[in-house]
């Protein structure tokens, strides 16, 4: 009895029970591909966060309104919170009090839909700011020019837009010199930014930047600022710059102690730390969900394998009665189980690769090689063990015991 003979029996076994073969393979496939895709989503989102932070630049510090705490305490403090103002931003640019600060730019976010003829676009970032914002936020111009300090002083309605916004509004036409209406207000496009790419949930190129004065005058009015972006002279002086910001703002906001500040500072390092820990939690959560789906798939496989062997115990008895050695029967079932789990696992890996090509909930999945080996390995082991174990038990029965099995 050679190997190919047994292989033929195994293939026959698989083709005879088509539905079972199909369901088992499907179960393994879904388990494996969901593990691969879900971990890839988790991994992709943390990669995206990281790269968006990288793009922010290491010298920049964000100042945001609000206290550091959450819940009750935050609300209590918010009663005497002073808003961030343009004057705060001006005060931060002070070569005497703040020698380590290179520039500061107030940022006023707005929500506006821009219209050009029949094309519309709602930029995910629509900000009024100062020219120094460009350097602090690592934003460079691809075509056209930056708006100038003069544009800010005069409150000119000019704008620099990102790639996505440009395409949405102008298609393939050159946007420079064209005029769009945003929230009903006309803006003239003077430049487009270099492609940033998307960062997780946010498209970095869905961008509309205009002089802060223009945005305040026409769209938002004089509300508190969203943020102030500060650029330190170098990456090494970020910490010094941070304490200079605190000294200046504490004085301006009449902050009595460091625990009752009504603003928060974020630099790249702190952002990286919080976001990478939260995206790790996200990945672990997804991996847990994926693990459960693999487990459920595994239970399904186990179940089908057990039922199959029990169902075929009588057949095993017949085979033994006409002279089949235990080894031949065991090999047949093991080969069946191996083929099922290998094919299912391979299809699952394929499915994982295909599925990871799509953007899922705004995240571009990045496959973790370890997840492939893990999912594939686990599914094959489950198939082998739960296919092999009951088969080995059945093959060890005396023929008469197996035949009596109903």
């Amino acid at each position, binding site marked *: 009895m050679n190997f190919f003979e047994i292989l033929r029996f195994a293939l026959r076994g698989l083709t*005879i029970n088509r539905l079972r073969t199909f369901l088992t393979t499907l179960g393994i496939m879904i388990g494996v591909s969901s593990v691969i895709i879900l971990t890839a989503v988790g991994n992709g989102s943390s990669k995206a966060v990281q790269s968006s932070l990288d793009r922010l630049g290491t010298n920049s510090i964000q100042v945001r309104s609000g206290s550091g705490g959450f819940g009750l305490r935050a609300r209590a403090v918010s009663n005497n919170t002073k808003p961030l103002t343009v004057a705060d931003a001006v005060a931060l640019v002070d070569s005497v009090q703040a020698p380590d600060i290179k520039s500061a730019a107030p940022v006023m976010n707005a929500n506006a839909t821009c219209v050009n003829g029949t094309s519309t676009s709602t930029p995910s970032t629509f900000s009024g700011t100062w020219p120094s914002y460009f350097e602090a936020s690592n934003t460079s111009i691809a075509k056209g020019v930056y708006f100038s300090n003069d544009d800010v002083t005069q409150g000119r309605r000019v704008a620099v837009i990102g790639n996505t916004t440009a395409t949405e509004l102008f298609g393939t036409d050159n946007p420079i010199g064209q005029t769009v209406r945003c929230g009903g207000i006309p803006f003239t496009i003077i430049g487009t930014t270099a492609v940033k790419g998307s960062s997780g949930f946010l498209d970095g190129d869905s961008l509309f930047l205009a002089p802060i004065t223009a945005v305040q005058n026409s769209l938002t009015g004089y509300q508190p600022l969203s943020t102030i972006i500060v650029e330190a002279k170098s990456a090494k002086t970020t910490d010094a710059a941070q304490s200079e910001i605190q000294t200046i703002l504490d004085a301006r906001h009449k902050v009595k102690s460091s625990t009752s500040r009504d603003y928060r500072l974020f630099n790249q390092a702190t952002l990286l730390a919080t976001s990478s820990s939260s995206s790790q939690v996200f990945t672990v959560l997804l991996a847990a969900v994926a693990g459960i789906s693999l487990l459920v798939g595994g239970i399904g496989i186990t179940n089908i394998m057990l039922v199959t062997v029990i169902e075929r115990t009588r*057949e095993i*008895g017949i*085979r033994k009665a006409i002279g*089949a050695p235990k080894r031949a029967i065991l090999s047949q079932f093991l080969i069946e189980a191996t083929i099922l789990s290998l094919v299912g696992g391979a299809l699952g890996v394929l499915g994982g690769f295909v599925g990871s090509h799509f953007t899922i909930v705004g995240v571009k999945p990045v496959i973790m090689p370890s997840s492939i080996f893990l999912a594939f390995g686990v599914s094959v082991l489950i198939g082998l063990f739960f296919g092999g174990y009951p088969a080995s038990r059945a093959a060890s029965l005396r023929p*008469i015991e197996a*035949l009596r099995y109903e």
Partner: protein
Amino acid sequence: MHPVIDVRGAVKRYGQGESSIFALDGVDLSIEAGEYVAIMGPSGSGKSTLMNIMGALDVMTSGKYFLDGIEISSMDENALSVVRGRKIGFIFQSFNLIPRTTALANVELPMAYQGIKSAERKMRALKALEVVGLSDRVNHEPTELSGGQQQRVAVARALATRPALLLADEPTGALDSKSTSDLLDLFDQINAAGRTVVVITHEMEVAQRAKRIIRMRDGKIISDSLNAELVK
């Protein structure tokens, strides 16, 4: 010459202690090559138990069994599988063909387990199916065959390995009278060709074909005689 079957002091006990049953309670039986033996007896008398032991499908609690002069009762499962394949053809009341598998493939199967090459296997299987009169049904699956035809496939499967011994446990139990007499003719033919045949049956009609009739009761042989019809 030693006997084909030589069973000595066979005991088969089921269960433990008080509630245990002796399905075989000290059976001695010797069958020579070429004999045609019928085993009769009421239900539960231990006929199948004895047959399963002779067919190496089951093991006894105590006693010795020699098949063709070789002691079977001390063999391990691996060696037994070889004996089942080469020495014994077993026919069941319920046919026991492999489902969803053609008559030809069913007949080839025991030869496949013996490692006989595909071409020779097929030739011998076709020959055996011809002997049982099923040349026109070789590619039919069990569900496409009548009970009589299925049992004849089982006989072909048992014969194709050219065993010394053909054992049949109530082979006609599930057959109509026409199929029964066809099958019995086949057994006569097989026995005439020199093969040892042992048949368990309730039916006198079946037992009458045998040359020797053994009667059992409560796990013991109570009579062992030449067929009265033939003696006359």
